C-alpha cells in the first residue's frame, strides 16, 4: 500500500514535488484529509486555514510549472504555533483574552516562510501564552500525544508537536522559552531545534520572556529542522536582538561527518529524578555516535541545580511585564467595568487562565519594590555564573549531550495541580535558554510502554550547524525517527 503523502518529511516531499510525482495541491489535500481523520482525537490545531492553504498550494504548483520554484519549502504544508502573528488569521496564544484578536501583520518568520513558498495549514495549540509543559493550560482544551492519547504531547508547543507526529503537517514552527520546542519534540518522537538566541527574529512572536524566547522548528527529522531554520533565520530590522549571520548556510554546514567531535556529558544530569529508561536510551545513543567518530567526556556544570530557580524568577518577571498590555483597551477581550481599573481587572481576570495568573503574580512580586534585589537581580547574577559554566564546558567540548526530559510523556492531569512538579519536567532544557545557546532534541529510543524518548545536544553560540550535523549523522544510522504512532485511524499507510 502506498504511503500517504502526509507522512513525508520536508525533504522527501520536496524531492517528490521536484520530480513532479506529487503536486503541492495533492500533498496539501492529503494533509487536510489526515487532519479530518485524526484531529478529533489529537486536537493539535486551534485554527485551520484550509481554503487559503489550497490556494497557496495551487500557486506553488503554478510556480513549479513555470520553473520558478523557490526551494525545498515551496508547496510544503507547515503548521504554526498560535503565538506567531498571522495577518488576517486569528492568533490567540490559546488565551480567552485574545479570542477575537486578528493581527494586522505577519511575524517575520511567517513572512519568510511565505516567501519560501510554504503552505500554511493553520495555527496549533499551546499552553496559554506558552506557560506550561503539557498544553493542559490551553484555554481551548489540551492536545493529546499521538503515541498515547491519554498522555500529554508536552508543551508549550504541544500542538505543533502533536500535529507533526500525527502527520497533520509536514513540519511546524514552535517557540522555546524554557524547553517549549524540545520537550514536546522529545515526548512526541520528533526533532526539535531551539536556535541560538538572536539567530531567528522574534518580531511577531507574542512574547513570553523576551530574553529567553526563540522560534524554531519541530520536524520529523533533523534534516527538516535544518531546512526550516535556514528559511526563518537571519537578521531582521524589526528585532534589535537579531544578528547578522555569516559563513555557510545551516544546511551546507550541517552536511559532512562528525569524526573527532568531542561531546561532553555533565555528571549533574544523571542524578535523581531521571527515569531509568530515559537514562538507558540516552546512554545507548553513545554507541552509534562513537562509531561515527565522536569521543565522550564527563564534564561538570556545578550551577545546574540552580537553573530552575533562576528560570522561575527571570521568566515570570519578564512575562508579567509582557502581559501587562492585555488590558481590554486596544484589542482583545474586554469586560465591562464602571471605571477603567474595574474594566482592567475584570477583563484580565476573565481572560487569563490559572497558570497565567500564577506567573503574572509571581513575576509582579519579584519585580516589586523591596524584592527586586533579593530575587530578580540575584537571578540575573546567578545567570551570569551559569552561563560561564556552559562557556567553559564548551571550550573543551564541541557539543554537550543530555536527556531532553526526565521522563517520557506523562498522563493528562497527572501534574496539573502541582506547578513545581510540572516545572521539573523542564529541568534539562531551561539552562539553554538562560545562557542563550542552541540545542537540538533528537529521538533516541522508546520506553517499554512505547513512548518516545529524546536526547538533547547543546552547542556553542551560533554553532547550530554542528548540532544539526551530529543529529543528522545519528539519524543516518538509527531509525527511531522513522517510527509512526499507532493512531486508531492512521490513514492509508500506517506503520
Amino acid at each position, binding site marked *: 500500500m502506498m504511503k500517504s503523502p502526509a507522512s513525508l518529511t520536508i525533504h522527501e516531499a520536496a524531492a517528490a514535488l521536484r520530480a513532479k510525482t506529487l503536486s503541492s495541491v495533492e500533498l496539501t489535500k492529503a494533509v487536510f484529509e489526515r487532519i479530518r481523520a485524526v484531529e478529533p482525537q489529537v486536537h493539535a490545531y486551534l485554527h485551520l486555514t484550509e481554503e487559503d492553504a489550497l490556494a497557496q498550494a495551487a500557486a506553488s504548483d503554478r510556480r513549479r510549472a513555470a520553473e520558478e520554484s523557490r526551494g525545498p519549502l515551496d508547496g510544503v504544508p507547515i503548521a504554526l504555533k498560535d503565538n506567531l502573528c498571522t495577518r488576517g488569521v486569528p492568533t490567540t496564544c490559546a488565551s480567552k483574552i485574545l479570542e477575537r484578536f486578528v493581527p494586522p501583520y505577519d511575524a517575520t518568520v511567517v513572512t519568510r516562510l511565505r516567501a519560501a513558498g510554504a503552505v500554511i495549514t493553520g495555527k496549533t495549540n499551546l499552553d496559554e501564552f506558552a506557560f506550561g509543559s503539557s498544553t493542559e493550560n490551553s484555554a481551548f482544551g489540551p492536545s493529546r500525544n499521538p503515541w498515547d492519547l491519554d498522555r500529554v504531547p508536552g508543551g508549550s508547543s504541544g500542538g505543533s508537536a502533536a500535529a507533526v507526529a500525527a502527520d497533520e503537517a509536514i513540519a511546524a514552527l514552535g517557540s522555546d522559552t524554557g524547553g517549549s520546542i524540545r520537550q514536546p519534540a522529545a515526548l512526541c518522537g520528533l526533532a526539535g531545534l531551539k536556535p541560538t538566541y*538572536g539567530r531567528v527574529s522574534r518580531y511577531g512572536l507574542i512574547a513570553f520572556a523576551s530574553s529567553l524566547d526563540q522560534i524554531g522548528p519541530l520536524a520529523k527529522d533533523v534534516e527538516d529542522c535544518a531546512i526550516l531554520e535556514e528559511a526563518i533565520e537571519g537578521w531582521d530590522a524589526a528585532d534589535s536582538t537579531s*544578528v547578522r549571520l555569516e559563513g555557510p548556510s545551516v544546511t551546507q554546514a550541517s552536511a559532512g561527518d562528525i569524526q573527532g567531535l568531542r561531546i561532553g556529558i555533565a555528571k549533574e544530569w544523571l542524578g535523581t529524578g531521571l527515569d531509568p529508561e530515559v537514562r538507558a536510551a540516552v546512554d545507548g545513543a553513545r554507541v552509534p555516535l562513537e562509531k561515527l567518530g565522536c569521543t565522550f567526556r564527563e564534564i561538570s556544570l556545578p550551577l545546574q541545580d540552580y537553573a530552575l530557580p533562576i528560570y522561575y524568577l527571570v521568566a515570570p518577571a519578564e512575562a508579567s511585564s509582557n502581559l501587562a498590555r492585555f488590558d481590554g483597551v486596544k484589542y482583545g477581550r474586554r469586560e465591562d467595568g464602571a471605571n477603567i481599573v474595574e474594566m482592567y481587572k475584570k477583563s484580565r481576570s476573565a481572560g487569563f487562565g490559572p497558570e497565567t495568573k500564577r506567573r503574572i503574580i509571581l513575576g509582579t512580586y519579584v519585580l516589586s519594590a523591596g524584592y527586586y534585589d533579593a530575587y530578580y537581580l540575584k537571578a540575573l547574577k546567578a545567570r551570569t555564573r551559569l552561563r560561564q559554566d556552559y562557556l567553559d564546558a564548551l571550550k573543551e567540548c564541541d557539543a554537550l549531550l543530555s536527556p531532553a526530559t526526565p521522563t517520557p510523556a506523562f498522563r493528562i492531569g497527572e501534574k496539573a495541580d502541582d506547578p513545581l512538579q510540572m516545572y521539573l519536567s523542564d529541568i534539562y532544557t531551561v539552562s539553554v535558554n538562560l545562557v542563550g545557546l542552541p540545542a537540538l532534541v533528537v529521538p533516541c529510543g522508546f520506553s517499554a510502554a512505547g513512548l518516545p524518548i529524546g536526547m538533547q545536544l547543546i552547542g556553542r553560540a551560533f554553532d547550530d550547524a554542528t548540532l544539526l550535523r551530529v543529529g543528522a549523522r545519528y539519524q543516518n544510522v538509527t531509525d527511531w525517527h522513522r517510527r509512526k504512532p499507532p493512531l486508531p485511524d492512521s490513514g492509508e499507510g500506517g506503520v
Partner: protein
Amino acid sequence: MALTRRDVEAVAHLARLSLTEAELERYGAQLEAILGYVESLNRLPLEGVEPTTHLSPATDRARPDRPAPGLTQAEVEALAPEFRAGSVRVPKILEE
C-alpha cells in the same frame, strides 16, 4: 518567607487582577512554595558578579530616522473593543 493575604492582594492589584477568596489562598500558598524553592539561590556566592541582562552579542542597534507606513484608523477601529470619533474609547478614569 511568610506571605500575608494582604501581600497577595497588593500584588494582584499591581497586576490588575481581581482574585476570589479561593484564588487568593491558592496563589498565596503556591507563590510561597515557589519562593521557598528559589531560596536556594541565597547559597550561591554572587558578590562582584555582573547581572546578565542581554544575551544577544549585537549592540548599538538603531534604525535610520525614515518614515514607514503604519496602520489606518480603520484598522485600529477593527482591533478596538470600543471606538468613537476616531479614538479608542475606555470607561472613565479614576483620578489617582
